[in-house]
């Protein structure tokens, strides 16, 4: 036995637990338009205020303010809204299908749709995406057929991953979307390597990668930061701070000590903290960092300050670790509602059009799902051929795998 008379031992605790009333009144949130837009080639030392404030364009009334306003064409904004809605409706459908046993697992991105969709729109099609597991909006924005995404999640004969990966661990080479790993953080420094190769070849394409705030605790995060800084890699290093890593709040990644964006300061790279539920701000900050990278300015760390509005995955119940209504009172609102509000505010959208768009998307998702299910699910219909499970371990199948395949009789 040792004495237990803890003096200075800090074990972080979140603001609220189930049964408590969530309040965020003391959260230090900059006003929309308050922060200026610095020159893209600014010295990182001049950018400290952007790591500690929050870059915002849209206020909570749907009005755009300040230098960061990307002044996008309303058609672009409507496309962004449509893609976010598609992501949300797709997510809901897939989660429901998991609940009725059509697939093994699912992860929604509710509340974080602006992160993936606005960033995809701000990047070029040739730019390489190294996502984590909650950026399905990247695929939707880049125009991947929902049927292909569903076929993957159902592990049916149409799954381009050939039934080898958990649902949502997408791969899409044609869309420059890397293969998602279930091991967190591993893609962070790989994106840096991809970007270094782009520099080596003298190409304009940059890389962009996403990591959760919880995963900033891994060595992989620091590897990515160090290598990106050392080689001036043209890469966007995005930390999606959605406040929760399953049941561990961001304090367990050190988020109470300093902002995640401020991690960039020690590496000599810009760290920009942005309202992740503000489509316009996310778009603008991504454009800024992409332009900097393309001009030889190297990497930028972007903290997307947002909130995971649903469970981590279909395997956890968030009411066990946080108040049920925390998402509802999140002071930065919901990204879909905010962009919708902005479009209505500027007279480019209406409740009627929104209702109609939702109906159209819901119908599309339903139709695509029927096609996917007709092909097969994890338990019914057509799977990839069993013999294919022995393929792609190596470029050419070695003898031991050939023998094992024969042993299985396929």
């Amino acid at each position: 036995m040792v004495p237990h008379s803890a003096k200075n031992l800090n074990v972080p605790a979140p603001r609220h637990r189930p049964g408590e009333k969530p309040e965020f009144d003391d959260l230090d949130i900059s006003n929309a338009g308050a922060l200026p837009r610095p020159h893209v080639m600014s010295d990182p030392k001049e950018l400290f205020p952007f790591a500690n404030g929050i870059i915002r364009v849209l206020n909570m009334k749907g009005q755009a303010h300040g230098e960061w306003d990307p002044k996008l064409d309303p058609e672009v904004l409507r496309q962004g809204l449509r893609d976010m809605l598609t992501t949300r409706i797709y997510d809901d459908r897939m989660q429901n299908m998991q609940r009725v046993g059509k697939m093994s697992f699912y992860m929604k991105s509710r509340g974080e749709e602006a992160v993936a969709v606005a960033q995809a729109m701000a990047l070029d099609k040739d730019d390489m995406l190294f996502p984590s597991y909650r950026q399905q909006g990247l695929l939707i924005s880049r125009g991947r057929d929902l049927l292909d995404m569903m076929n993957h999640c159902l592990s049916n004969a149409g799954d381009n991953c050939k039934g080898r990966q958990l649902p949502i661990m997408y791969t899409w080479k044609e869309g420059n979307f890397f293969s998602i790993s279930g091991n967190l953080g591993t893609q962070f420094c790989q994106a840096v390597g991809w970007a270094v190769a782009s520099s080596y070849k003298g190409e304009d394409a940059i890389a962009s990668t996403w990591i959760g705030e919880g995963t900033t605790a891994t060595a992989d995060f620091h590897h990515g930061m160090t290598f990106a800084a050392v080689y001036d890699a043209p890469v966007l290093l995005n930390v999606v701070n959605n406040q929760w890593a399953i049941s561990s709040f961001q304090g367990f990644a050190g988020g109470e000590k300093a902002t995640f964006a401020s991690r960039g300061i020690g590496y000599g790279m810009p760290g920009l903290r942005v309202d992740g539920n503000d489509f316009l701000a996310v778009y603008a900050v991504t454009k800024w960092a992409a332009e900097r990278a393309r001009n030889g300015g190297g990497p930028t760390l972007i903290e997307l300050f947002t909130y995971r509005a649903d469970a981590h995955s279909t395997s956890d119940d968030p009411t066990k670790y946080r108040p049920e209504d925390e998402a509802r009172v999140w002071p930065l609102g919901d990204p879909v509602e905010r962009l919708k509000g902005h479009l209505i505010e500027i007279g480019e959208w209406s409740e009627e059009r929104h209702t109609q768009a939702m109906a159209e998307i819901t119908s599309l998702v339903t139709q695509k799902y029927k096609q996917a299910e007709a092909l097969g699910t994890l338990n019914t219909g057509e799977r990839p051929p069993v013999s294919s499970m022995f393929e792609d371990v190596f470029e050419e199948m070695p003898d031991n795998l050939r023998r094992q395949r024969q042993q299985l009789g396929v």
Partner: protein
Amino acid sequence: MAKMNMVQAINSAQDVMLEKDNSVVIFGEDVGYFGGVFNCTEGLQKKHGLQRVFDTPIAEGGIIAMAIGMGVNEMRPVAEIQFSDYIYPAFDQILSEASRLRYRSGGEYWAPITVRTPCGGGIRGGQTHSQSPEGIFTHVSGIKTIMPSNPYDAKGLLISAIEDNDPVVFFEPKRLYNGPFYGDPKDPPQAWEKHELGEVPEGHYTIPIGKANTVRKGTQMTIVTYGTMVHVSTAAADLSGYDVEVIDLRTLIPMDLEHIVESVTRTGRCLVVHEATKTGGFGAEILSQIQEECFWALEAPIERVAGWDLPYPHAFEWEYFPGKARVLDAIKHVMEG
């Protein structure tokens, strides 16, 4: 042809590939200006430029992650891990990423990376500079594992590894860098220039991955081994008075089972020798597969000589190292019961 030791042969393989293919780059800790702690990249930065042969941060996980990302972006990176004892921080990147990428992406992505790393003992390196971790890698589906035993093989295999589209972990037994080692530290050091396998072509040539090599013909028993123990086993065979065949595996994965089975079926006896610790080592896999394929041809149980199941003990290096005497005893035991 030129006289080369193993360091020069490995250097030459990289030089040839840098010359031949712009997508080849070489990086690792101290490999650039300094030329590597074992000189395996000496002069390459000066010859091929700062952007093709360069130093990295001291972060093995980052080194391999960067290599994977570059490999996905059409390059053929060769990453050096300074000692295989330092490879563990990179293990997740090798196991969960490099080796799984082609499979998990349904063949859409792969990373043709080569990871070079010095391994093995006999250099007074203590437990952090002497390990033989190859068995940890042979257990992983999706990576090729190579360990050459001489300069000629080292160059040909390294070129094959760099040109291969799968990830390869290339173990270099550092006790063999400057000359063959026959297992007795009291022997005067040997140089590769007096050895026929120290004759190495200066240009491009390959040795196929996955092909074993019989280095000593024999009829009474077969020793299956690789790396430094090829030479120790051959020396023990010479002293044994028996007609012992010695097979140098060269590539562990994919393993050339056919070659082994042909020999053991003919000789009826087998000994497996490696420097790595015994329990769960790659020798157990070799033995098991021979048993499955050759049981009815066997005249005696298959035995193993391996490192003791210990961390590598600095002051007891030669009690730990499976030297000539232990191999000789095992040969006799297999032959005489």
